[in-house]
């Protein structure tokens, strides 16, 4: 049982704007003409494609196989035909490309067979593989594979379900909790079983009273330790480490996971997806998403993975003065460089901006060390110190002041009276440090390669010399034996020399043969001009070789 709430330091209370879309029930987004399904659905892992263009697929049919421990399966979000498998721009601030399966829906939405899993009798290994094969990843934004988190071997005391949803504008989790609380609770029970947790705690920001009510109704009558706790609405209360802190008082340091401290945290959307996968046999092919901002009809939509962003945005009917489009919340989301990118499992919100709602950033002024950023930092850092160090490229010092504990929540930039885009400086510093570390490890590898090569060459030379010496000694011994037999003692002094000469001649012969063997042979299908050029070059090379041989001749002995 949670006795009382803890609090994390810092945090901010930005305008939430949640009312714009919180009242809109989840609608099923219409089928787009094409779905672009990225094979990369979780960080560090791209699924292996198992379909070919022209192939018919059913809704929920596997199109990508997990090929590494951190990888999860990818499924066809609807029934239709695979049109092509091609690199396509992802929803990413720099428009990175990834391999995508493009599917043309047939409009029938025909499911594959959907067997369910009796998770209580299944082995944990089987259940975790089930999650992986149904493409379950964290829907809070990080898309970390759930089978890894749920598969922490024992020691989990508390299972936290994150329904805080602290970012302004976003309401998809709110709506999901209001409308599908039973499914979320069912998923939470499965996760409790898998992690072996003793208690389940739902953490929901207290600005979502209806969601809290719905969850409380859903857990009513359930046995076991399960509670719904309203947490103070204070951004970033939905950050995993912040929520764990608020609910349990435990502080998870940078680089450590909740599991190390007996706490595991899942987003409510993830719990819902787990329920669909295990109790209904449905792979993760859709998610709920908010479309809001400068639009006429803000709303929440159940969206097939792979639906192009422009089609989704159109559902909200953007107003005429709409400018940039943000994906995710305004605190940690990013600006979309293009709109033909597909929605992924990480996409929780699209925000249309306008100059009135999102004024352009004012000019940056000097830091006055007022400390407003330090007071707002939930990681309890001294952001202005990190700013000075990052600006001065004093990266060592920045790391010493815990740069990598920064979660880039944006609170410091939000409160800065000098309008300094602090997070950008930390991103820059982190990027530089990573680049330097990569460079350093590359240089280390190169140095190792170089040293190994030198050593190998030295060893080969040594071995060759030894071999030669051994051979020469053998020949000498043989010759000595013959000369001892023969009475022609006068020839003896010339014997060793002759043997050496014979050896050298043989070696030269071998080398020549070798050289001939490795002569470039890329001379197929040449144009006549090229053929002529090659012939010319060959002739020149031959002439050069002749002179070289002549020049070398005196030294050859």
């Amino acid at each position, binding site marked *: 049982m949670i006795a009382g709430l803890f609090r*994390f*330091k810092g945090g*901010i209370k*930005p*305008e939430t704007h949640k009312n714009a879309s919180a009242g809109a029930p989840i609608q099923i987004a219409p089928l787009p003409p094409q779905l672009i399904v990225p094979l990369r659905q979780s960080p560090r892992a791209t699924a292996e494609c198992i379909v070919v263009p022209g192939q018919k697929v059913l809704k929920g049919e596997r199109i990508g196989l997990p090929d590494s421990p951190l990888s999860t399966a990818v499924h066809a979000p609807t029934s239709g035909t695979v049109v092509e498998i091609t690199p396509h721009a992802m929803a990413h*601030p720099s428009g990175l490309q990834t391999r995508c399966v493009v599917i043309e829906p047939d409009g029938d939405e025909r499911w594959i067979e959907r067997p369910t899993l009796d998770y209580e009798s299944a082995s944990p290994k089987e259940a975790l593989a089930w999650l992986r094969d149904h493409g379950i990843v964290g829907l809070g934004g990080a898309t970390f594979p759930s089978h890894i988190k749920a598969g922490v071997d024992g020691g989990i005391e508390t299972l936290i379900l994150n329904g805080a949803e602290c970012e*302004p504008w976003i309401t998809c989790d709110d709506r999901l909790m209001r409308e599908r609380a039973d499914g979320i609770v069912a998923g939470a029970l499965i996760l409790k079983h898998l992690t072996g947790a003793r208690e389940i705690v739902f953490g929901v920001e207290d600005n979502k009273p209806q969601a809290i009510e719905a969850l409380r109704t859903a857990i009513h009558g359930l046995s076991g330790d399960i509670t719904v706790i309203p947490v103070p609405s204070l951004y970033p209360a939905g950050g995993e*480490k912040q929520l764990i802190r608020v609910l349990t008082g435990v*502080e*998870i*340091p*940078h680089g*450590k996971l909740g599991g190390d401290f007996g706490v595991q945290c899942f987003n409510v959307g993830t719990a819902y997806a787990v329920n669909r996968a295990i109790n209904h046999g449905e792979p993760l092919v859709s998610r709920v998403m908010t479309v809001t901002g400068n639009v006429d009809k803000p709303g929440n939509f159940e969206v097939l993975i792979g639906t192009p962003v422009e089609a989704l945005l159109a559902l909200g009917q953007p107003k005429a003065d709409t400018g*940039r489009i*943000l994906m*995710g919340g*305004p*605190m*940690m*989301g*990013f*600006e979309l*460089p293009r709109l033909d990118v597909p929605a992924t499992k990480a996409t929780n919100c699209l925000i249309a*901006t306008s100059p009135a709602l*999102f004024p352009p*950033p*004012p*000019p940056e*002024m*000097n*830091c*006055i*060390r*007022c*400390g*407003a950023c*330090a*007071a707002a930092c*939930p*990681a*309890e*850092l*001294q952001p*202005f*110190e990190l700013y000075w160090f990052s600006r001065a490229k004093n990266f060592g010092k920045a790391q010493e*002041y*815990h740069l990598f*504990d920064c979660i880039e929540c*944006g609170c410091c*930039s*939000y*409160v*800065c*009276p*000098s*309008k300094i*885009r602090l*997070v*950008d400086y930390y*991103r820059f510093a982190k990027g530089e440090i990573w680049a330097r570390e990569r460079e350093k490890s590359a240089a280390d590898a190169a140095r190792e390669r170089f040293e190994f090569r030198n050593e190998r060459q030295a060893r080969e030379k040594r071995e060759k010399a030894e071999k030669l010496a051994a051979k020469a000694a053998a020949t000498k011994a043989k010759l000595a034996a013959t000369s001892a037999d023969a009475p022609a003692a006068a020839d003896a002094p010339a014997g060793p020399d002759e043997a050496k000469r014979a050896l050298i001649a043989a070696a030269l012969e071998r080398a020549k043969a070798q050289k001939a063997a490795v002569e470039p042979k890329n001379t197929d299908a040449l144009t006549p001009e090229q053929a002529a050029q090659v012939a010319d070059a060959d002739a020149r090379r031959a002439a050069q070789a002749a002179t070289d041989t002549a020049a070398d001749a005196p030294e050859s002995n």
Partner: protein
Amino acid sequence: MLTSPFVRKPTSVQQVMFTVLVALLPAVALYVWQFGPGIVVNIIIATLSAVGAEAAILKLRKKPVGLYVSDLSAVVTAWLIALTFPTILPAWILILATVLSIVAVKQLYGGLGQNPFNPAMAAYCLMIVAYPSAMSQWPAAGWMDLSTHLQLIGGASLDAMTGATPLDALRTGLRSGAPVSDVLTHEAFGILGGRGWEWIGLGYLAGGLFLIQRRVITWHLPTAFVGGLIIVSGLFWMANPAHYASPLFHLASGGTLLAAFFIVTDPVSGATTPRGKLIFAASIALITYLIRNFGAYPDGIAFAVLLMNLCVPLIDMKTQPRVFGHKGD
């Protein structure tokens, strides 16, 4: 292409500085009530000099003049100089001090946010070293009309109009061997400290509490400064009440409350970590007391602040708070 966060709180440096100016208003009003409108003239002179100097040097440095002048930081410096300097000082010294603080102490180090020393206090130290007699000519307690004030700051010498500051009077009295209780009957003293100054001190206190409420400053610096001064003066006072003035006298005298809420709280030149702030302000209080009692100058806040400004990088480095999740390290 913009990056997150895409929203920001509607605050600005200008707003912060404006709040500080507003917080100074009660004290300025009480100053006028006690000593006449002269202080307003001085504030205007200092403000014009500071803004003029700031604009000129920003232009020389090819910086956006409008952006930085409108941040009001130069105006805050000007007001603090006007309030800490003797009101009947010749105007040219006031102008010189203001221009030096903006040009030499602030802008030559890189402008807003870059100065290692508190500009107003650096100007005070420069002037008290350069013009010691002019800097210790304070008006006698009581109302002074505008024309007399203008004559005085125009350079006229009207001895009858000047008087000793309470701290000066105390020092002179004690040097002559009189006990504190006798010295305090001098006309310069009021109920708690200097006559008239007690009221202005209350004005600073009110403004300071307003700043804490508006979260422009935190409680650490004023509390450590006032607390430090009370403790150190209390120890001496308890040891020998005949020879040392009471903590209350020290609180109500000189620029104690002005310094507590408006001088040691300068974020640019002060310590920034919570523990660092406590060390920084308490050290200033200690040095202030030592200079007041054993040094050559009647009030030591300015020197104490500059000395501790020098220690800020060290204090900050050694008092970094533990970050989230590293409490046990």
